[in-house]
């Protein structure tokens, strides 16, 4: 026992290093699970608050630019509002039930931390659980899809960016409605890959890609990007298309978190365990 104790004391630097490496590896492996170690995340109270202060300072110096962007966005939203009011009136006249039109609730948030250089990039927002944000909500900007909520604390949220090697989003061609899965191949930060798009879809370069609405996360029709190249892998019945994103993922500021108010109903219906 004394010998062992003596050895431990003599080799304390090695023992300490090993001990710390085991802790580090343990944190790395456990934090890979969907529910990350919360205090080891930028949505934690301390890190979130520091980023909030930093973002406040930066915002002050960028007010002019932000103002211009918001007024442009406002104009686009008004246009969309008039369009949707028109469509709503049409549907009300035909079906008399407009519940599904109000299915998605949108709340604004600011990006206070963003990364694009990792394989698994995350974004931190300045809103959290207290504002009703929960896991798996969609996040968009005025230009298009940004990502999906991963984790929340009371006042902050981490979002799995479109530039995350493990995120897959249901996406479709705007014109033909044929759909596939949008993934990121980690190569460039302005492009994603659309896979599993049926050959019958007759894709063209320049086609617009939007959310497919097959999942409960995003409403259908939110812009993602434009097809910049496509191919058919050997012996495959599906296209593989390169999509140039509308969003500049390295320059995000104002975003919107989308809540699907009918998500539970949709998921429970789609879940095979319900006996169908």
């Amino acid at each position, binding site marked *: 026992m004394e010998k062992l104790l003596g050895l431990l004391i003599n080799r304390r630097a090695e023992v300490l290093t090993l001990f710390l490496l085991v802790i580090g590896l343990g944190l790395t492996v456990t934090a890979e699970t969907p529910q990350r170690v919360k205090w080891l995340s930028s949505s934690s109270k301390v890190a979130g608050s520091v980023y909030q202060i930093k973002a406040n300072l930066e915002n002050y110096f960028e007010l002019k630019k932000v103002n211009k962007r918001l007024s442009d966005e406002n104009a686009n939203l008004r246009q969309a509002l008039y369009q949707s009011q028109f469509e709503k009136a049409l549907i009300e006249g035909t079906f008399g039930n407009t519940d599904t039109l109000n299915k998605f609730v949108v709340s604004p948030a600011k990006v206070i931390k963003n990364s694009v250089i990792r*394989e698994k990039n995350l974004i931190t927002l300045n809103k959290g659980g207290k504002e009703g944000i929960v896991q798996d909500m969609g996040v968009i900007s005025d230009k298009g899809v940004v990502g999906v909520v991963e984790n929340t604390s009371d006042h902050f949220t981490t979002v799995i960016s479109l530039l995350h090697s493990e995120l897959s989003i249901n996406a479709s061609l705007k014109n033909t409605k044929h759909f596939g899965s949008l993934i990121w191949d980690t190569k460039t930060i302005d492009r994603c890959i659309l896979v599993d798009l049926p050959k019958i879809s007759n894709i063209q370069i320049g086609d617009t890609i939007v959310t497919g609405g097959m999942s409960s996360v995003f409403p259908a029709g939110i812009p993602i990007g434009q097809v910049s190249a496509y191919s058919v892998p050997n012996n495959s019945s599906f296209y593989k298309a390169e999509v140039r994103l509308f969003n500049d993922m390295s320059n995000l500021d104002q975003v919107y978190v989308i809540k699907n108010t009918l998500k539970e109903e949709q998921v429970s219906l789609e879940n095979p365990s319900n006996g169908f």
Partner: protein
Amino acid sequence: MDSSSLVPIWRFIWVLLLQVLVFNGIELYGAAQPMILVLFLFSYPTDSNYSLSIFLSFLLGLVVDSFTDTLALNALGMTVAAYFRPHFLRLAYGISVEYHNDSKLHGSLGQHSYFLFLLLSLHHLIFFTAETFDLSRAFVILKQLAVHLPLSFLVGWLLIQLFSLQKR
């Protein structure tokens, strides 16, 4: 408390603030970020406690990881770099570095640069290997090293020059 014993703590705070508030916001061409955490090890007093340097390095890495959502990758890289620091000191400055009764590093520009390069290389290698977690993707790890290491070295070297000029 002796003021010299607070030196590692001040450097810990300085490096932390620089990395989190300044360099985490820089992503050059959406590809490279200066990772200068090892400046803590570079400037750690040579006559201070070795085990404490390992522990503080782990802690510094972990705090930065909590700001950058990088799991515990910096903590792993910093721990290994701290463990090998005495070996790197001997490689860069020669065996006589152990007999200097002084907390500051004395050496030529080339020796300082070599020491910084060794620390950065090991930290970055461990960081990207643990991030990729797949040795079959060695090409990706090498690519990340080729992109990040020169930038980190340049920024680290400039910071060392800046601080050494201020002290003169």
